[in-house]
């Protein structure tokens, strides 16, 4: 226990220190946190009237970001799975960084959910026995269960691994490996359950199809590894940790395949909905070319398609895919494209039209945008600190003997 406590403390200390560029990065993120504090105060004091949400469009960018980030959390599996199932040596060395990123992503998810709730002071109503936990009926309770479980799993797996490295002890494979396998399966479940959250509502015909879970998984496994690639490139450049090229090749292959699948599923959706468009296709119509003259989302959709399709075609060429100078830009493009398509591009058209046919458009207010950016900033601060701390343990900058010395 003492060593675990020291590990956490050392990681924190190491994570919040760094060279000028790193401190500038943390400072840049803290800037957003200032707006986050103000925005959250406004929302807690005045209610959600400070957002642009209405009875017509009652879920906005908070849940859009939540859905996207659950995907990002699940994408840790793209690192952990090859490391433990295929025993990919390069990945095995850095798998724990994937787990750290998953923890940061789940933290962001929780923050977005708290921002979305009308009464966060009544969160205790969800605790079983003290409150009422409507499981298994309510899909939201399943979501809470899997997300909390995933957070615990990643924390336990990740910190156990780091702790053993920190104290130079061997890893007890008898329970650790099964737990890792559980975490891998659990990762698939968190994003499946999140998809079930929205695709089990007949009232929302744009979402009410069985393709939703698989779309979520493939887009998650296309967007998540983009961030992982960027983080790994930064780790490679700025720390002593050696990350093998094979890691990047595997990740970029994963991205390519999953992006291709995602585009294929988008094509399938478009053809199915528009061959004979019923009233149920109105949401998708609103997204792709506008309905009743309302078309604010249309440019976003086409930009995201351009980004995804363009990146996919470029990634098909191994010379580009393996080029670690071009890859980061493609990763940013893919991440943005999928964020648009899966975040706002999925959530907002689900509410236009309303189930009784009213078309409206939604504009997030500055407070909403500020809170969202603040949540991302906090998430990235957590990610930076955890990843840096983990790298410190892996390269030996932090160790129990140094701590005790």
């Amino acid at each position, binding site marked *: 226990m003492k060593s675990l406590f020291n590990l956490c403390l050392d990681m924190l200390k190491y994570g919040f220190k760094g060279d000028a560029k790193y401190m500038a990065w943390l400072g840049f993120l803290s800037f957003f946190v200032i707006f986050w504090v103000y925005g959250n105060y406004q929302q807690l004091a005045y209610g959600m009237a400070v957002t642009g949400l*209405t009875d*017509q469009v009652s879920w906005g960018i908070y849940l859009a970001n939540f859905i996207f980030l659950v995907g990002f959390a699940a994408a840790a599996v793209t690192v952990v799975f090859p490391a433990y199932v295929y025993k990919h040596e390069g990945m095995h060395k850095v798998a724990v960084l994937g787990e750290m990123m998953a923890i940061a992503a789940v933290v962001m998810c929780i923050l977005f959910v708290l921002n979305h709730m009308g009464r966060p002071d009544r969160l205790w109503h969800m605790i079983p026995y003290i409150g009422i936990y409507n499981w298994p009926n309510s899909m939201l309770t399943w979501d809470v269960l899997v997300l909390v479980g995933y957070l615990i799993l990643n924390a336990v797996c990740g910190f156990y691994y780091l702790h053993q490295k920190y104290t130079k002890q061997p890893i007890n494979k008898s329970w650790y490996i099964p737990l890792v396998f559980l975490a891998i399966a659990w990762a698939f479940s968190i994003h499946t359950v999140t998809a079930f959250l929205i695709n089990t509502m007949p009232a929302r015909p744009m979402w009410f199809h069985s393709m939703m879970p698989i779309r979520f998984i493939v887009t998650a496994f296309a967007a998540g590894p983009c961030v992982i690639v960027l983080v790994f490139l930064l780790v490679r450049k700025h720390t002593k940790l050696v990350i093998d090229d094979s890691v990047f090749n595997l990740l970029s292959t994963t991205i390519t395949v999953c992006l291709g699948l995602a585009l294929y599923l988008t094509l399938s959706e478009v053809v199915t909905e528009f061959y*004979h468009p019923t009233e149920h296709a109105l949401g998708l119509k609103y997204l792709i070319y506008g*309905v*009743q*003259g309302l078309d604010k989302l249309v440019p976003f959709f086409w930009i995201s398609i351009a980004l995804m399709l363009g990146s996919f075609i470029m990634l098909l060429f191994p010379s580009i895919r393996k080029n670690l100078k071009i890859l980061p830009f493609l990763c940013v493009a893919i991440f943005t494209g999928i964020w648009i398509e899966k975040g706002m591009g999925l959530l907002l058209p689900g509410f236009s039209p309303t189930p009784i046919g009213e*078309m409206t*458009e939604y504009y997030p207010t500055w407070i909403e945008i500020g809170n969202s950016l603040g949540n991302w900033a906090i998430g990235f601060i957590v990610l930076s600190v955890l990843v840096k701390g983990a790298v410190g343990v892996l390269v030996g900058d932090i160790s129990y003997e140094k701590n005790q010395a």
Partner: protein
Amino acid sequence: MKTRLLKSVIIVAGFAMLSSASYAENKESKENKESKKETVCFESRDGRSQVVKREVKKGVPNVKCSSTTGGVLWWGDPFDGTVPMGAMPITADYTNEEAVVKPREKEIDKNKLLSVCTTACHNGEYVPVPTSMKPRKLTMHKDIVPDSMNLQHGRGGIWCLNCHSATNRSKLIDNFDNEISFNQPQKLCGKCHGPIYRDWRDGIHGKRIGMWQKGGKKRWWTCTECHNPHDVQHGTRNSGFAQLAPELAPEIPKGMKTTNHENHAHGDTPWWEGIFGGSHH
């Protein structure tokens, strides 16, 4: 100098706030007094069913009125000012219900005097009782029926004396020469409009307020409270039911500036719609 100025400013401001508070109170009570003038709204047909708003219980008014259309929106006491409806002509379970109506007899009874004593009409002479039932052109009551030979009810099948008693102007009359009170027009209307009467009797047609339970007390709207029997065929009207001004539409939701998109004409179709089959939305 500066501090003194500041202090005097504070004192003046404080007095200003005090006086404005008392002024606000005064203004409020004055406004209350002004708004104490009557609020009048109509229960069914405008002009025929006005009611004045007043308190029946502490904090509960008898009606709440619409400020946009002048119609009653809410009844505090549904039975305010009602009298028993009287027996239904056909026996059924509902005859055990307590049924009340807003009376029209009081108003109609004013006409009783005219039928016998007055010399107000017919060139100062005593108004004779009609001798024949044959329809003929009338010179009076043109505000209610502009042309007695073209009554907008029944398409030439009926005229005034088929419903109004020739001898007793404050009663209606049926085909058996039974006098019918103006409080119970259904006994007359139901003779021709059988299916509608049956639906009304069972509560499916027409309006009732009060207690929903079977046997519960209800105030029934009688036929003429909604339908003007002199005017039912009129082109722009709906079964003798005049059009109303609608209440206000809901507020435009946040994020929308106008509701013009609802009126969006079916515009151009994108080029690829031609591949999948035209649809001009």
